């Protein structure tokens, strides 16, 4: 009942660099985001490969040889793991971004996610075919 202003709202600051340790769901989100480092690094590596190819056969052979080093193999395995994780997490949320309504009902999320996995498999197969693996 005072005439003077008694309000003094208190603002709790969000810790800028440690907020994601607060909840498991934030950790999962950060893990998904961190995958981009490996995917980015792998993309760079591919670009280097293309550059080496343009520089001539010897350079390209040397590049391929370097890829066979244990460090490179470990990196590739890591990059593969992270990109699969990234892909899976994105595919799993595609029903949110791309809902499909047929008549009154929405397609179950599993169908949309499944379609993405199927597309992924088909594309991968096509790439492998073109690469002459089979």
């Amino acid at each position: 009942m005072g005439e003077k202003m008694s309000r003094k709202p208190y603002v709790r600051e969000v810790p800028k660099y440690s907020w994601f340790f607060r909840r498991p769901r934030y950790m999962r989100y950060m893990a998904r985001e961190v995958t981009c480092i490996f995917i980015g690094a792998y993309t760079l590596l591919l670009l280097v490969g293309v550059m080496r190819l343009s520089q001539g056969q010897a350079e390209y052979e040397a590049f391929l040889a370097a890829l066979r080093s244990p460090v490179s193999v470990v990196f590739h395995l890591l990059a593969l793991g992270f990109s699969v994780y990234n892909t899976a997490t994105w595919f799993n949320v595609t029903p949110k971004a791309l809902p499909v309504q047929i008549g009154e009902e929405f397609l179950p999320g599993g169908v949309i996610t499944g379609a993405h996995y199927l597309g992924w498999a088909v594309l991968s197969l096509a790439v492998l075919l073109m690469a002459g693996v089979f």
Partner: protein
Amino acid sequence: MSERVYQLEVLRYHPETDSEPHFQRYSVSCEEEWVVLDALNRIKETIDPTLSYRWSCHMAVCGSCGMMINGEPMLACKSFLRDYQGVIRVEPLAHFPIERDLVTVIDDFMDKFKRVKPYLIPKHEKPVSEGEYLQSPAQLKKFKQYTMCINCMLCYAACPEYGLIPKFLGPAAISMAHRYNQDSRDGGRDERQEEIATTEGVWECSFVGACSEVCPEHVDPASALQQVKIKSTVDWYKEHLMPWVKK
């Protein structure tokens, strides 16, 4: 019916006496089938009448009693004591200034909600005397889930983006804009895009998805925001790559 004693640790803050919030422990006897809100009410009635919090309906439709319960944004009226073990920690909703105790200042949300024009802007005006607009059950279902938002703001408390970047319009406001954009009777999307297809709008969202996980009404704001992003991207391409195509 059986009662037992529960321990609640409640964040207290009184602007007239405190420089910062502190926890206060209460031991309170409650029925085992009660919710956290019932426990708070019993504390207020029998232990500490100075404890302040908002509540009304006790059935998860009025959206008043959003709080952090053991660190998770929850409606106190839908948080059952039986689901907790040990001390239950109750705090005001995260990311909002604390007015007092469990009462937060929600002006920011109210302003943002209004900014997105959350009302029908009819595609075709028609007088009431001509009756209702026809809308098929399928057209209704397209946006119905987004109408279920009770403005409880749990999604804002869950969203780390909003916590870090307060100018972000946030999940509930954008979802409501999307709700009207998806309504077959509405023609106001262009007006709303000016607010929501911006850096402070959907493009601040990095799809953590926490909003949908905590929504007590299963509204799925994350889906609304991703759909707005996709539609805005399509708009951009149409505008810049195919300027001859009308939106």
